[in-house]
């Protein structure tokens, strides 16, 4: 009898073990992933929503985040530092609090304290594009000093031997990290090309009309300039207009910096307005953000205890290197989002 009992229980055990086995062989990944990611709230606060970079990031992120059951929101401070600070404060205080804050800082210091407060509340803080004096959980964007070096190399390449070797700069301003670092990179690279000279370096204050006016003056004072580096494609249309007006299209190589959006960059190169654009891919930045977001949200790593720098590879788009994949298309992205 005992034997029968043992046998029966052994069989029962074996059958349960056998029926459980296929379930244990199932991939535990999706369940864990879903558990960690479901319902996570991601809020992005760029300097403004109305320009290509922000719309690009938002476009790519909003496509992917709902796939893991998260929610994605944006705030539009419309270039106002105060409105941005307010948006961050509100996001920190909101209930449920966001799990990840993606912030594009207007300068090195303005948001540092607020971002620290967010981390203390357990919110991961991602910095995009603009560096700040703050240990973010992750930074995404270009290495601006390196971009300056690349722009300078492109200027030297475009001018070439036998040219005047005179280069002009249209800086942004004197407070924004992107402008200061780009300038430092350009100066560093130019030091290696002793015969090249920076003949003028006015600021545009990121405004296209100012960029046009200072470039007009620069071209008159230094008619032999062979290349101009404008620090942002958002105002470089002004420098392009000045070059066109001076009848120097094709003679002065205009190098701008941008996010690789089609109408802002590739179309301008196509039409000859810009000679080259040194770009950080918004698309790649977005997917880097997503990857790190997925990692941090599953890792259990407390906010503010790690910091990662993810520099996006920089590419130089000019007539020689441009191909169908050089730029991303904001219009197409928006059209796809509507479907």
């Amino acid at each position, binding site marked *: 009898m005992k034997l029968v009992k043992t046998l029966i229980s052994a069989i029962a055990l074996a059958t349960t073990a056998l029926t459980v086995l296929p379930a244990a062989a199932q991939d535990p990944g999706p369940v864990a992933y879903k558990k960690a990611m479901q319902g996570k709230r991601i809020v992005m606060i760029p300097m*403004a929503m*109305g*320009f*290509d970079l922000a*719309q690009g990031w938002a476009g790519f992120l909003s496509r992917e985040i709902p796939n893991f059951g998260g929610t994605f929101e944006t705030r539009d401070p*419309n*270039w*106002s530092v105060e409105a941005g600070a307010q948006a961050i404060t509100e996001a920190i205080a909101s209930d449920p609090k966001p799990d990840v804050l993606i912030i594009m800082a207007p300068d090195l210091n303005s948001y540092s304290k607020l971002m620290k407060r967010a981390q203390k509340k357990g919110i991961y803080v991602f910095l995009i594009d603009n560096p700040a004096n703050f240990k973010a959980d992750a930074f995404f964007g270009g290495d601006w000093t390196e971009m300056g070096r690349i722009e300078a190399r492109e200027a030297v390449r475009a001018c070439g031997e036998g040219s005047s070797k005179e280069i002009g700069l249209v800086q942004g*301003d*004197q407070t924004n990290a992107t402008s200061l670092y780009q300038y430092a990179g350009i100066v560093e690279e130019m030091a290696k090309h002793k015969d090249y000279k920076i003949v*003028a*370096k*006015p*600021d545009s*204050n*990121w*405004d*296209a*009309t100012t960029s*046009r*006016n*200072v470039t*007009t*003056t*620069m071209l*008159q*004072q230094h008619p032999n300039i062979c290349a101009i580096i404008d620090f942002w494609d*958002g*105002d470089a*249309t*002004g420098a392009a*207009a000045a070059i066109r*007006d001076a009848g120097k299209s094709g003679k002065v190589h205009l190098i701008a910096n941008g996010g690789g959006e089609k*109408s802002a960059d590739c179309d301008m190169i196509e039409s000859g307005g810009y000679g080259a654009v040194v770009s950080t891919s918004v698309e790649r930045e977005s997917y880097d953000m997503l990857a790190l977001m997925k990692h941090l949200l599953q890792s259990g790593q407390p906010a503010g205890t790690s910091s990662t720098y993810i520099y996006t590879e920089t590419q130089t788009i000019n007539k020689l290197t441009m191909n169908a994949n050089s730029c991303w298309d*904001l219009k197409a992205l*928006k059209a796809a989002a509507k479907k």
Partner: protein
Amino acid sequence: MNASSFNQERIVLIATILIAVSASVFLSGFLNVPNLISIVRSISVLGILALGMAIVIIGRGIDLSMVAIMAMSVAWYLQMINDGYNDYLALMLVITGVIAIGALNGFLVAYADVPPIFVTLATGLFVFGYVRSQLIPSDAVAVPHGHWLELMGQFRLFNIPVDVFIFIALSFAAFIFLRFTKWGRYVYFAGDNPAAARNIGIPVRPMQVLRYVLAALISFIAGLLTAASLLSIQTRVINSNLLYDVILVTVIGGIGLSGGKGGVRNVLIGSALIGILLNVMTIADISLLSQNLIKSTILLAAIILDGVLNPRDEQTAQQGDI
């Protein structure tokens, strides 16, 4: 030298000439035809806006919505063209909108008695907010290829860009209006003493509406010129110093903020000073921070001088006047 010969206009004119002369001596490349053309051109849009501002200020008002109207009207216009609207229809729609906003400014100031500084601040923000959120999808709107604005931007006569001619033409028109037409003269009377002007039968309130409509239309022209030159309109210009520069040019030339004084000549002198100053600072490679410091010091000096030379008229001043 008696008090009347020592007025602000002369001081600014002398300062302008001094800067121009010393720049010609010390900065090679200042005194030549292309540079002088580029000075006038760099100041034309600012000068055109200042003409509109001058008409409003002489009538004892101020229009802080000009830059918003300038950028947003053109942005809306270009957006409609890009969306495939008929050009003529789009233009008519925008002009109607511009006139409506100007009339709203004037109505609230003239009939609702709200101080102009608050009215126009609010309508400026409204125009920006409405157009940006409802009508255009991003900050910048491009001029479509082959559009008449593109052709206009490329127009040159004797190497002089079209902006300069339009600035000159509008200056002349404003001069004729203010100096020789009945309604133009009324602007001075109403600005100098609104109550007295009303007592002698001048239609003070409809006139006020007219001035804000004119300022709005002039802003639209300034916006068209900006777009023609840059082949796009950047609405971010709202956040720039442009509005302050417009007031700077107007006040510095000697148009008293308390109204009733000044004319087109003052705008031209103010524009000349700012244009030459900016050009000299760019040639001399002075950084933006120092440029802003120099500009703001000049504005401050002009406002103090304005306060001394054109004291508020206690009999006619009202709460909310500036």
